[in-house]
């Protein structure tokens, strides 16, 4: 038998809408990665569409195509979700800080693509501004 949940949760109480959605995500070096465009939430019983009757946990931060569905409504196909696992998050303040390098994450593929195909090919693109 499990104990009933505490009335007053210990620790920092975060409102998912207020403190997570649309916040800037920074990587371990403080480099911007993306903005929290949406959240993936699972029920603690493992269901991927919790209906509010059970406790739920945030499992991933989402970014990319989900921005369009946040604005227009709907739900993108799961194959187009770019997830940042919640386990990578080390701090939530005015920004969400990760413990990994942004360049290792799938969500930054457009940055890498533009860098490799356009910006690095222009002379001076890989040097500090002088």
């Amino acid at each position, binding site marked *: 038998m499990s104990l009933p949940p505490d009335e007053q949760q210990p620790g920092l109480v975060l409102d998912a809408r207020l403190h997570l*959605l*649309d916040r800037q*995500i920074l990587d371990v070096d403080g480099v911007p990665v993306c903005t929290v465009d949406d959240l993936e939430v699972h029920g603690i019983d493992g269901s991927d569409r919790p209906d509010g009757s059970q406790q739920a946990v945030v499992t991933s931060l989402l970014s990319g195509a989900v921005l369009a569905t*946040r604005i227009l409504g709907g739900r993108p196909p799961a194959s187009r979700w770019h997830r940042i696992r919640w386990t990578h998050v080390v701090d939530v303040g005015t920004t969400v800080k990760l413990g990994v390098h*942004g360049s290792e994450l799938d969500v930054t593929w457009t940055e890498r693509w533009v860098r490799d195909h356009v*910006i690095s090919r*222009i002379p001076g693109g*890989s040097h500090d501004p002088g």
Partner: protein
Amino acid sequence: MKKVLGLALGILTAIGGFLDIGDLVTNAVVGSRFGLSLAWVVVVGVVGICLFAQMSGRVAAVSGRATFEIIRERLGPRAAGANLSASFLINLLTLTAEVGGIALALQLASSVEPRLWIPVAALALWLVVWRTKFSIMENVTGLVGLTLVVFAVAVFVLGPDWGTLADQAFHPSVPANEGHAVYWYYAIALFGAAMTPYEVFFFSSGAVEEKWKVKDLTQSRANVLVGFPLGGILSVAIAACAAIVFLPKGIEVSSLSQIVLPVALAGGKLALAVVIVGIVAATFGAALETSLSSGYTLAQFMGWSWGKFRRPARAARFHLTMIICLLVAVGVLMTSVDPIKITEFSVVFSAIALPLTYLPILVVANDPEYMGTYVNGRATNAFALVYLVIIVVASVAAIPLMIVTGAGS
């Protein structure tokens, strides 16, 4: 000298807001048609932009967050997206006009067809954005742009009837041959130019580029309190020059060569050379401000890596955005469109962008999570609320007035 250079960000921001090519022309048109009877609008605008630019600079220095990150976070993707679309279009229209403005100013100096100068101007802009350090960029354009002070000197040299000018400025009335709607259309155009949103985007992002911290708050305040009033004084000086030379003769200003005519009358060839240098610097500065702002707004909305302090390969999408904007600007200008006409349309987009920009700044400047003990005082909040009402009224009235007056014609 270091203290003076420390004010370059405020001066460059203000030049881009008050003395870009569209405003140079608008100020001269207003002077030639209404004398100084709209000077009070510039005062109202200067106070407003000082208030909100100072807030955005303080938020950036204390929390390290630039303005569009805050807009996205507080308004959510829909309202922030609407603001982004409007602000981005204002940036792009202004950038296009400025590149054309550089070409027109260089044409005055060289008599070479502007369309030959346009690609040269755009390439020079891109090279500065691509390779130059932020501090060098703001110092050079800010200081050279100061040569526009020659407009203020010209007012004194022309030896006007000070009583008439003071009467126009302190007892404003609509001239008999102009309609009330036109008067208020220009009032909103001048107010919108003073409060144009890319100023706070650029100023707050510049504060992040310069790595301002809490200890730099005095510098931020000094930047705001020197830069914007200076921009305001120069824009009134341009109107005064036009009011002295053109208003009594009933000549309406329509081109850049007419704007510099009072200066040439006052100071001859030398003054003309100085003013042309000033106009090239001011339009170049405004073009840098708007091209960087287009990168800043999109990158901050999307959460991309941005900033001139990073090498371009580390802020790839930010730099690609600016390259595309410059290419679009050149493409539009090559159709021989009149660059000065382009900025008139940005009034329309200001209607959406102004309230959606300044409300989130005010909200976050009051949020202790971001600001700690540096939240707004009561007086600042009271002023800011009054200004939000003015901004909403101006933005609601902008489009109807533009349609009724045929954009002030």
